[in-house]
């Protein structure tokens, strides 16, 4: 008959408990590291993108999205990989699925921000879908109006603001800082003139 007391004695005889715990912990950690889920890997890239301005002073009042909202959305939809897909990724509102053309687990560190932007793009459509405003069946300009606007702001004006802060700390003249600021404001305004935003202003 197999009793718990006999089992404990057997374990103690074979392996000291401290070593056993270490072994189990090691197996668990290695297991997670070796086989991340597609979602888990995609979230890593998304987090890199959404955290890229966290160290900037302006991050106190600027953000390219609510990380918790995007993380929750990513965990609530289906994610798959189809290497024959021509676009980088697509979101299907019928099946609530994002299909990536590349496996997020195979994305390199140098590709992470770009892949994170792809995740961000498709998750934005998933969030629109969750609010009953997917728009994919109406026209492309309507469907892309929000993410086009946000992508422009993240790619163009925010890096200008980042440079302005670095220049300020380097002691660059007020005139040059003012020029940076004007450029930033111009580029924020330019987001409203993107092709999709000309037809449909972002929300």
């Amino acid at each position: 008959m197999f009793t718990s007391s006999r089992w404990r004695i057997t374990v103690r005889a074979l392996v000291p408990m401290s070593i056993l715990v270490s072994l189990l912990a090691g197996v668990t950690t290695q297991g997670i590291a070796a086989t991340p889920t597609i979602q888990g890997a995609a979230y890593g890239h998304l987090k890199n993108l959404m955290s890229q301005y966290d160290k900037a002073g302006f991050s106190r009042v600027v953000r390219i999205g609510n990380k918790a909202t995007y993380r929750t959305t990513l965990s609530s939809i289906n994610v798959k990989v189809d290497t024959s897909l021509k676009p980088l990724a697509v979101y299907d509102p019928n099946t609530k699925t994002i299909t990536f053309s590349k496996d997020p687990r195979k994305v390199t560190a140098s590709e992470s921000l770009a892949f994170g932007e792809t995740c961000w793009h498709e998750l934005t459509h998933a969030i629109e879908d969750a609010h009953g405003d997917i728009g994919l069946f109406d026209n492309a300009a309507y469907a892309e109006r929000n993410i086009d606007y946000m992508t422009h702001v993240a790619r163009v004006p925010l890096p200008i603001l980042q440079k302005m802060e670095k220049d300020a700390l380097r002691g660059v003249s007020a005139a040059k800082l003012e020029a940076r600021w004007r450029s930033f404001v111009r580029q924020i305004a330019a987001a409203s003139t993107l092709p999709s935003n000309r037809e449909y202003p972002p929300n």
Partner: protein
Amino acid sequence: MREWFGFQANPEQIKKMYLTNKAFSGTKWARLRAALKGEPLNWTGEWRTNWGMLSLSRSGATVTGAYTHDR
């Protein structure tokens, strides 16, 4: 946009932060504060809005505008 996505990048709010937040009150930020204090936001140009095109121009302390919506 803010409610759905949590997206936030408002020039007026950013400018206000640089001018009032304690984190930017030190001497190393003095030139930036000077640059922003002397520079009112310039909204001159054509703006696409929910109500059609809005045209704004500024001359000194006066802003003049026109919009296309007529209903």
